[in-house]
Each structure stands twice: as C-alpha cells, then as structure tokens.
C-alpha cells in the first residue's frame, strides 16, 4: 500500500517520457534558400527525396541573400541555420570571415561512372567552404505583348526612349554596375578592370543615374517576376530560371540573353552549428548527379556536375543559360572581385539609390 503512490508516479512518468523521447528521435534540418520557382525546384528535386530517404524533417526557410544573419548566429554561437544556399561571392566572404565550416570535397559522391567529384564538378564551383549546386544567370526579361519593337541587346534595356516603360532591377550593385558599363561601351572582358577605378565606378553610376527615374527595385527573385506579371515594369532583370515558371503561368515573357551574367550558387554550413553532420549529409545528397538532374526537371539552370548534363532532356538543355546559343555574349560574374568589393560598393549604391530623382513630395517639416 505504501508503495502505491510511487508506482503510480512511475507509471505516469513513463507515459510522459515516452512521447518526448519519440519526438527527439525525429531528426530535422533547417535549410535556408531563395524563393519562388527556385526553392520549388529544390524541394521537388532533392529535398523531399532526402526527407524520404533519410527520415529527416527539412524545414525550408527563405531569404534574400547576404551574410549578416549568418554572422549574427555564428558569433552568438546560436546557429539555427544548418545549411544555406549562398551566392558564390557571399560564400567566399563568409568563408574568409570564418563564418562557414570548411568542407572536405572528398566526402562528395562520385559520378555514376565513378569519376571523382572534384573532376566531375565544373571548375570553380567547389570552394574551401562551399559546394556548388547550380549555374544560374541574371538576364533581362520582357513582356513581348507590351514592347514593340522587341529589345535585341542589353543597350535597349537602358534606352527608355525607344523602349518606354519602367525597368525592374535588383537593389544591389551586383550585375547593375556591370551592365551599366557594358551598355556604355565597355567590353565585357574589361568590366571589372574599369570598375576597379574610381572613374569607372563613377561612369557606371552615371549610366544608372540616367535610368534611375524609371527604375523599380526588387529584392527577391519572385518580386521581379511579379513586377513583370503585373505590368509594373516593361523590362526587368531577373534570374533566368524564374521566367519559365512565369511562362507556365501564362505570361508572355521572353528572355534577352545578351550579356547575361552567370553566377553560381553554393551550399555552405555555418560554423558552431549543432547539426553539421546532418548538413553535410544533406549536401552530399543534394549535389549528387541524380539530385542535380532531378532539380533541372523543375527549373532550367545548369547543373554544376558534368555528369548531370546527359540526364537532362535536350529540350530543357536548350533553355539553360549555358546553352550555346544563349551564352555567346555571357559575362561570368567575378565572384572573387565582388567578395572583395561588395561591402564598399553596397554602401555607395544604397546611398545613391536613396537619393531622389524627382522633387520629393514629402520634404521634412
């Protein structure tokens, strides 16, 4: 009789502990990536298959790039982002700042024919702290039903007299400065040399200043698509892969491939995180030949593994930024240059962007 309350307590504790223990056994991973059709392609291409294969619950968080949040989490040793899809220059910056863990590329799966990963990946897509996932591009897209004649070259994007209407541009110096110089006559191969000089910087900003009254800024790739779909702009810079998704929804959009700017996205793992083994396991899975090929079924970006290309339907291959007819004037974004100059130029760019062109309606009083 005297032991009865103790036994009853024990029984209840067991009952209480059982579900807690079950919950702890379910592994999870916080994955941070971009928005719109891109995250859709990742979810269907390899995130859901990974969840099924590993029994891991992947929480997909969306962001607009940058490394500020990673810096905050890593420095506070309160890392909630387990694996992040970064633009290459951000990955380089974050790695140099010691915000990402170094990745041993030997852990990556070989190609189906046994080719080692470091030979299978496109050169430059494996970095000290990053593993490449796609070759994407920033292009100009337009609504063919709104523009007549249709733009043929990058210079047309900057010509609001012949091609009237507002222009969508990412609120960032990246790509905009390169395009401004190219439209002003700088040969693409000299763009970064020119931007390295004060006069070159000023020249790029001067070109953008002429266009500024017509610019609508976007921050996420999906915003750019929405501005085209709603007719807010007649042309916009946009991530190339997003356009096809918009076309599938009924938009009459065309891509102007002239002077598209290529960029790579890479996976990175923030330092000091509690889930690094799981994060590496995910990267291993997500960058396999099959996973990359599977993702390309949902978005026409170039795979970073050569072995994935033969698995892609020829019709889709025609739509890739790396397709021969699309890439004749392509500019390879210089991630190393941007990693070095982004912070400085972003400060100037933001201040420049905030300066009004028209007389402000609401002066402070």
């Amino acid at each position: 009789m005297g032991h009865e309350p103790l036994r009853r307590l024990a029984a209840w504790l067991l009952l209480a502990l059982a579900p807690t223990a079950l919950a702890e056994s379910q592994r999870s991973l916080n994955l941070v990536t971009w928005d719109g059709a891109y995250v859709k392609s990742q979810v269907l291409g390899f995130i859901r298959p990974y969840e099924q294969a590993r029994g891991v619950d992947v929480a997909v968080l969306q962001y607009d790039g940058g490394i500020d949040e990673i810096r905050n989490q890593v420095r506070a040793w309160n890392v909630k982002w387990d694996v992040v899809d970064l633009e290459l220059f951000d990955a380089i910056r974050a790695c140099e700042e010691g915000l990402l863990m170094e990745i041993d590329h030997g852990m990556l799966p070989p190609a189906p024919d046994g080719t080692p990963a470091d030979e299978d990946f496109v050169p430059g897509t494996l970095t000290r702290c990053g593993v490449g996932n796609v070759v994407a591009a920033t292009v100009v897209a337009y609504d063919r039903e709104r523009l007549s004649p249709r733009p043929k070259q990058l210079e047309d994007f900057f010509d609001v007299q012949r091609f009237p209407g507002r222009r969508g541009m990412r609120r960032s110096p990246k790509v905009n400065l390169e395009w401004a110089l190219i439209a002003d006559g700088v040969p693409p191969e000299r763009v970064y040399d020119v931007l390295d000089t004060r006069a070159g910087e000023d020249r790029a900003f001067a070109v953008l200043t002429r266009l500024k009254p017509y610019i609508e800024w976007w921050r996420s790739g999906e915003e750019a698509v929405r501005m085209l779909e709603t007719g807010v702009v007649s042309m916009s810079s946009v991530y190339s892969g997003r356009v096809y998704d918009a076309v599938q929804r009924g938009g009459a959009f065309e891509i102007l491939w002239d002077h598209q700017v290529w960029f790579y996205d890479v996976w990175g793992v923030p330092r000091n995180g509690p889930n690094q083994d799981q994060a590496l396991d995910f990267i291993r899975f997500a960058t396999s030949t099959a996973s990359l090929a599977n993702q390309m079924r949902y978005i026409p970006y170039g795979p970073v593994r050569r072995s994935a290309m033969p698995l892609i339907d020829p019709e889709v291959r025609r739509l890739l930024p790396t397709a021969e007819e699309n890439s004749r004037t392509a500019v390879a974004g210089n991630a190393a240059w941007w990693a070095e100059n982004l912070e400085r130029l972003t400060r100037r760019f933001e201040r420049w962007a905030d300066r009004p062109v028209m007389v402000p309606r609401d002066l402070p009083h």
Partner: protein
Amino acid sequence: MVGAMVNRCLRLRSLCARLLCARAPVSAALLAGAAALMATPLQAAEDTQAEIERLKQELAAVTERLARLEEQLARSPQVDAQTPQPEAAPAEEPLSVEVLSAAAPGAEREEAVAVEDEPDIHIGGAVRFNAFFRDFERSSESKRGESGFDLFRLGIDGEYRNLLISAEYRWYPFMDTLHHGWVGYEFDGGDQVQVGVHKVPFGILPFASHNYWFGVPYYLGLADDYDLGVKYTRDDGPWNTQAAFYKSEELGDPTSVNRYGFDLVRQGEQQNEEINRFNLRLARTFGAGSGCEHEVGLSGQRGQLYNADTDDSGTTWAAAAHLDSRCGRWNVQLQAARYDYAPKNTAGVDDSIVRMGAFAAGYDVVSDADVLVANLAYNFNVPWRAIDQITCYNDYSRLFKDTAGFEDSQLNTTGCAIGVGSLFTYLDVIQASNMPFFEDGSLAGGGDDEWHTRVNLNIGYYW
C-alpha cells in the same frame, strides 16, 4: 524495478530517449513489463477497479503507438551517413519542359515558414534650429542676425495587420501642441479610414510649397491643416479620392491659439469657430511611373460657422483646383482656390473679416478671397558623395482680397533644401508683402504694402 528505471531515466533522459525510440521493440517490452508489474500489486491493494482499467487502457494505447513506430522504423532504409550515395535521387520520369508546371510552390509546403506577424512600429522625431535675419527688425540688423531653437518633436507611426496609428507632438519655445494623432484601418483593397486629428484633404498634398515658411494657403488654414474627424481614402488606378468629415478643429478649444494648423479662433468680438465640415478631394495622376507625372485635382469643403455670442451658425466653403507636375527633376505646382466665410456675428461686428490663429498668435483674415499658388522646383543631380539631395525652388502665393481697400497679401520664397544623411537644411529668402509675422502685414485690411525680407536658415536633425 520500475522506480529505479524512472530514476535513471530522469538522470539520463537522452539515453532513455534513444532506448525508447531507437530501440522501440525493447522499450515496448519494458512498458509491457512495467504494466504487468504494476497491475498485479495494484489489483491486490487497489482503491478502485475503474482506475486500474483506465491505466491499463492508456498503457495499451502507448504500446500500440510504439508498435506502429517500430513498424515504421523497420520500413525505413538504414543509411550510413558517411558513405557517398552516388544515385541518391534517381530521375525516373522522362525530363521535359512540361514537368516544370507540375510542381507545387515551395510556399505550399507544410514546412513553409510562417510570416512574421508583429507590429511594425517606428518612433521618430526631430530637433531643429533657426538662424535668420529680418530686414524689418532693427535689432536683427544690429545683432547681425538672430538664432534660436525652433522645435523638438516626437512621433510614432505603427502598423499591425490592418490597424494603423500615427501621432506627433511638438515642442516650440513658445508653445507645445499636438501636431496630429489618429488611428486607422486599411482594408484589403488599400482603402483607408482614419479617425482622430489628421491632415485635411484640400489642394496640393502633402504640401502646397517646398520651403520652410510655407505659402499663403497655410496661413489661411487651407494647407497642411489638421482637424478632428474621420477621413476615408481610396485609390482606383490613377484616381485618388479622399472624403472627410470634421466635427471641429483639432484641439476642441477654439479659444486656444497654441496649435499647429491655422483655424478660426474665438478672440475679442470675433467669436466664430468651424464645426461640422465636409471635405472632398478628387485627384487623377497622368503618366504615373513614366518619370513624368501630372496630378490634377479638385477639392471642396463646406461647413458651419458657430458663433458663441449669437449661438447661431453661419456657413463656410472653399474650393480649389490644382496641378502638381513632376517631370524628370522639375516640379511645377499650380493651385487656384476660393473661400468664403459667412458668419452670424452679433450686430456691429465686422462680417468682412474672421479671426484665425496658430503658433500662439491670432490675426484677422478677409472673409472672401481668391488664393493663387505658383511654385517651381528643381532637384539637382548632386555630384558630391556627401550630399544626398539639393532641391531648389521658388514658391509664390498671393491672396486676392474681395473687400475694397484691402491690399493683397503676397509671399515669395526662393531657396534650397539640402539633405545630408539625417541632417536636413532649408536656406530660404522669404519675401512678404502684407503678411502676418512681417512687420504690420495683414491678411485682412490695413497692414502695409511694403515688401519685407527674412533670410532663414533652418537646420534639423531627423530620426
């Protein structure tokens, strides 16, 4: 035995977790054993049979749940995390463009991140100082200019879901007062309702001038005026509609001149106050987003003039047509307005004037008049990195008085507004003819017909 196990579990919770879940068959057996152990002695010395039955049922349910999990675990592939998996996600279906549309948006996933639902509150303010020279003040000339504290203000702007709030309070050396304060609701279509003290929708908005001193309409209560009421705002493509009803002036005290916006005030024999006023403003913007926008609009207001001496109400109305054109870096503002006050004064009180007040001062204003505004401004492309904005302007406004013998009032301000980060500076040359605050100028009769000048430098820090 069970007690010992529980104690160990309390100390080694994570170990137990693994035991219970990763080795589900073992834990199921343990639970079943525990149930059996408990059941026997409990039956021997138990208070109620019903409780035993309930415990048995709960244990059975847990056992069943564990069995299900054990089954799931058995079905899951055993993965060695260290082994490269070259063909982890085989592409089984044929690849084609068509499948691009087959996917569900990421946002539809159950794991999609919830949108943050927190109030968006901004608290801001400003502190400003003036340095000025007045050619109509001997001391100003003797001192080679004057200077002083202008104002300190604090404000809040907030948004939570569809609810809005905005308020600002100002401290001047000679008075402190509410600038505005309202709560609002924004409907899904963008329509908005504001209740409280808010800006009266009349003429060019938000300001019918570019400079620090404003133009003639401000001193007539026909620009940048704030009253107490309810306002509805709606945008339909290029059209903007604002309709409002104001029960009274903003303070509820028509005898006070310690206010920001000019209103009729009760002083001396002038005992009129504005009540029950309706406002309607319609505007259409041409070329929105083209870099060359032209807003044309019509405004009207009609209300009552309550006279505290006669306890009777007269009427008042005003109407305006405006053009606000922003083309490239140029801005042209044109506005023509007419107003009329028809008070019910006591016999012998002059009906040709009404009394207005604000900024701790009151003055007479002609009862019927036309008002003209013609402003031109240019926003420079600043070549210097340190300066964010230079907008220069010439703002001209004139009051054409109906009453014979009353000289017109005019105000012309030439100047520039310069923005450097959080610092904002107005440098104005203000020339006035027959305007209050300039010698003996008057918006009614009398006054003088001379031009007076005030050079004003206003430096403000805004946050």
